[in-house]
């Protein structure tokens, strides 16, 4: 036994290693991270080469040779670079779509209120019922009043005339606000002990998750009115929001179900032993924990809903993307769609990226209490 052990185990102490470097020199850092072997060197050279070919002309086009402001498109045609002037020129149509021109201040104000409201409610100090409840009743009321009008001397503007970024905001928010309760009910329904409710929930969730959003939007926009008695008017935009909410809700239900499954049985039993009923147990014990566990998943689908709001253009609503498309179909500016679409992409990116950063922040913040 002694002989083989001696072959592996050293008898004396090993030589001391140099202490790890606190700060690498630039050369050492590069050696470590860019040129650590022949493969790494090859990758670095290849990618670096591509960057060198692509980046300088892109900067030249987007920044140096660009036209930032022009009264008409002739300045753009003369320039070699990007024509960002299309955005100041067309910003009213892009941001507000078909909304009556003289009334644009209303959706603009609504949008500002909404963003301010989001910023306030994203800040954890305001997470009190005394603040959030009034905020979230007053805010939608104010936004909808501004958008719809018909009171306080503001002319009525039908939802068929809504457009641009405010419409995107209404659709996105409507989807989340209507969709979350649907999601919770379906998730609970799928875990219910009652077979009828369970089967119905499963059927609903799996059906909606199995079809594209486009078909749901067609159903909501095109054929749903056929299912109602004649003379029963429903607003097309509302129908579309409801369709998107159901789609969102079915995906979110699966995320919440994951959270419900992760809650230890003891929690349920402890709640039972306190004499809480089903709804009390669900509302006070189960859902708060389940939702907290699945925040990353929830936020993923919220971000998806934000991006999916662009699909309404397939059923003819004038959201931000569609309004931009309409703006650049003006023959004078038709060649500068790249700039316009890049700008739209930037706006969506900022929105989605902000949401995903916020999700990370939330996840860290809420898990603090659990790291005892």
């Amino acid at each position, binding site marked *: 036994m002694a002989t083989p052990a001696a072959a592996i185990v050293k008898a004396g102490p090993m030589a001391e290693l140099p202490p790890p470097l606190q700060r690498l020199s630039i050369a050492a850092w590069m050696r470590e991270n860019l040129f650590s072997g022949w493969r790494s060197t090859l990758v670095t050279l290849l990618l670096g080469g591509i960057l060198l070919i692509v980046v300088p002309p892109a900067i030249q086009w987007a920044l140096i040779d660009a036209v930032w402001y022009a009264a008409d498109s002739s300045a753009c045609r003369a320039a070699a670079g990007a024509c960002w002037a299309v955005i100041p020129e067309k910003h009213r149509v892009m941001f507000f779509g078909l909304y009556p021109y003289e009334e644009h201040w209303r959706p603009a104000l609504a949008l500002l209120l909404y963003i301010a409201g989001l910023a306030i409610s994203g800040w954890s100090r305001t997470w009190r019922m005394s603040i959030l409840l009034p905020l979230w009743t007053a805010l939608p009321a104010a936004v909808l009043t501004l958008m719809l009008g018909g009171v306080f001397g503001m002319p009525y503007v039908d939802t068929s005339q809504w457009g641009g970024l405010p419409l995107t905001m209404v659709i996105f928010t409507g989807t989340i606000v209507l969709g979350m309760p649907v999601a919770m009910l379906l998730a609970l329904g799928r875990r219910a002990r009652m077979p009828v409710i369970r089967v119905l929930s499963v059927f609903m969730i799996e059906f909606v998750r199995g079809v594209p959003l486009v078909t749901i939007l067609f159903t909501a926009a095109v054929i749903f009115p056929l299912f109602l008695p004649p003379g029963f008017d429903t607003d097309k935009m509302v129908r579309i929001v409801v369709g998107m909410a159901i789609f969102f809700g079915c995906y979110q239900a699966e995320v919440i179900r994951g959270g419900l499954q992760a809650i230890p049985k003891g929690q349920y039993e402890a709640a039972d032993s306190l004499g809480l009923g089903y709804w009390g147990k669900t509302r006070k014990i189960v859902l708060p924990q389940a939702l907290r566990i699945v925040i990353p998943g929830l936020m993923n689908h919220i971000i998806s809903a934000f991006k999916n709001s662009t699909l309404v253009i397939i059923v003819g609503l004038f959201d931000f993307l569609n309004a931009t*498309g309409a703006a650049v179909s003006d023959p004078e500016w038709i060649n500068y769609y790249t700039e316009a679409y890049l700008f739209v992409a930037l706006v969506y990116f900022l929105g989605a990226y902000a949401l995903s950063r916020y999700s990370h922040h939330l996840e860290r913040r809420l898990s603090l209490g659990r790291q005892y």
Partner: protein
Amino acid sequence: MFGRLVLPAALLGAVFLAPVAHAADGPTVKAIKDRGALICGSDGTRPGISAPDSQGRWGGFDVEFCRAVAVAIFGDREKVRFIPLTPVQRFPALQSGEIDVLSRSTTKTLTRDTVLGFNFAPVHMYAHTALMVHKELGVTEGGQLDGASVCVPPGTTIERNIADFWTQKKISYRPVVIENLKELNDAYLAQRCDVMANFLPGLALIRAVQAPDPSAHVILPDVLVKEPLAMAVRHGDDRFFDIVTWTVYATFEAEEKGLTSKNIDEMRNSDDPEIQRMIGEKSDLGEKLGVQPDWVYQIVKQVGNFGEIWEANVGKDSPLGLDRGLNKLWRDGGVLYAPPFQ
């Protein structure tokens, strides 16, 4: 005691008296009146035919006829809401009652009149499917288009018409079918397609308004298929169909009788018995139709006669610059012919 009898008595009275007072409104007219506005499905992307301007006000040839219907019912050209519809959405929207009337450059066909469940008002534009090509191709007639890529709006009669046309000519083609009209136009203008197939006014519009250089496009002389464009309503309310039908006739008849939005106030005092029957103080035509008593007067005053509507939106001096062609009165060699207003 007396109070308890009032309501049943009133109901009973209403039931018996209503048909006597005037013809009862059908479900569509009733819904329109309760709502206080007509809902008109239209295109929304074709300036001159149907589009909101930069301030969101709708205008165009198709739009004006909807406004005329609103004038007949309410006496007010603003009491109409427009819903932009893609080709695919338009029929379900009408079938489901989302809109009351469809005025979206829709061709009257047998199928649509029957199995789709619609009724068509008199044709307000006689058009045909035509082909437009890029001038640099040097094409002069459709038979030379072997192997061409053709941009087509989907779900229209045009899609079928070009299939028939190329089959008849025994040559091949490659359809590019894009539902969104803007994308479709952009595809043609970027030479994704050699040919754009559309009804003639649509082509004129693309050339005049959407093309950066109108002279780079030629509309070929081929007449593929007749495209009589008309407003459509759904089955189930004949009274409303009557209103829409006679509103269109009123614009024809007004032109025939020389009534324009400018002279209508003077003409109201005309001695001509036919004009008196139409727009006189004692005219009972509106009552018979179940609309405003002075409906023809209001239509001409607020919207104009057919010729005025044509010239203001698609005529020679408009960007579209269309010739009236068949769309002239019968006495001028066209086919517009309104039955007698009596």
